[in-house]
């Protein structure tokens, strides 16, 4: 059972959360007409072995979107912070 340290609610089972993929990518600005930027943002992903930044939403808790550090090779979980604080660590 992956346990995720929700910055609002505390450490919880991952089953309370919704996973939403890579959080390291910068979303193009709203209204950006850069077709290529949107294409890369939506469709092109790395599949790293090791450190990964990812979005999770605590849907059964505070409903906050989080950025979580997870190691994809060991499934060990690092820090988590509110996504509204940005994706930089």
């Amino acid at each position: 059972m992956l346990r995720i340290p929700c910055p609002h609610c505390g450490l919880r089972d991952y089953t309370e959360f919704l996973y939403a993929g890579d959080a390291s990518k910068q979303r193009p600005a709203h209204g950006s007409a850069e077709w290529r930027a949107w294409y890369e943002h939506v469709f092109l992903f790395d599949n790293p072995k090791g450190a990964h930044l990812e979005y999770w939403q605590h849907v059964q808790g505070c409903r906050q979107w989080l950025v979580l550090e997870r190691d994809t090779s060991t499934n060990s979980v690092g820090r988590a912070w509110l996504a509204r604080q940005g994706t930089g660590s």
Partner: protein
Amino acid sequence: MFESRSALDMYRAEAATDGADGRRALRLGEIGGSHLVQLGVYPGGAARVAAAVRPILGEPLPESSVLAVTTSERLIMRIAPDQYWVVGGESALDTRLRSAVPADAGCVTSLDAARTRLLIEGHAARALLARLVAIDLHPTVFPIGSFAQTGIHHVGGLLLKVGEDRYEFFSLRTFAASIWEVLLDAARPFGYEISLLKSA
């Protein structure tokens, strides 16, 4: 007047049940008569909202995201960094708060009837809840006044500890009947009394 009905109306005839040892270690029921208001804060509006509601609530908005502020009249919980629940008996609370909060700083929404407030009380309350929620309820970790938004049987809700052996679970109203059935099923070996609302 349009009659108000509980989501558990059809369970009013449910009987108390003895546990495996012949005793009834639980009291399960619904708490009625309270109003629930959600206070939302827009980016940059926190200070103004806090100042605006303070005279009405009589308490500052809580910083803590795990402990409720309890006064004689109401309960205030910070359910998200920018959201609070205020629970109390006053029906006009939402209008009073709404008129106080600057419209460009925050918003006030009534959630009356949107949640069913379930009561779980008795010696076996913690044992029963251990079978239903993945929250550590050890008294050193979850003292009286603690709350946690979590799930029972896949359904999200808010668990609040109000006394030594007394908990409340704020269930989404539309799931409340299902949660109630699961509660009763899990409570069977402990035995239970039932206290549901009388229909108006």
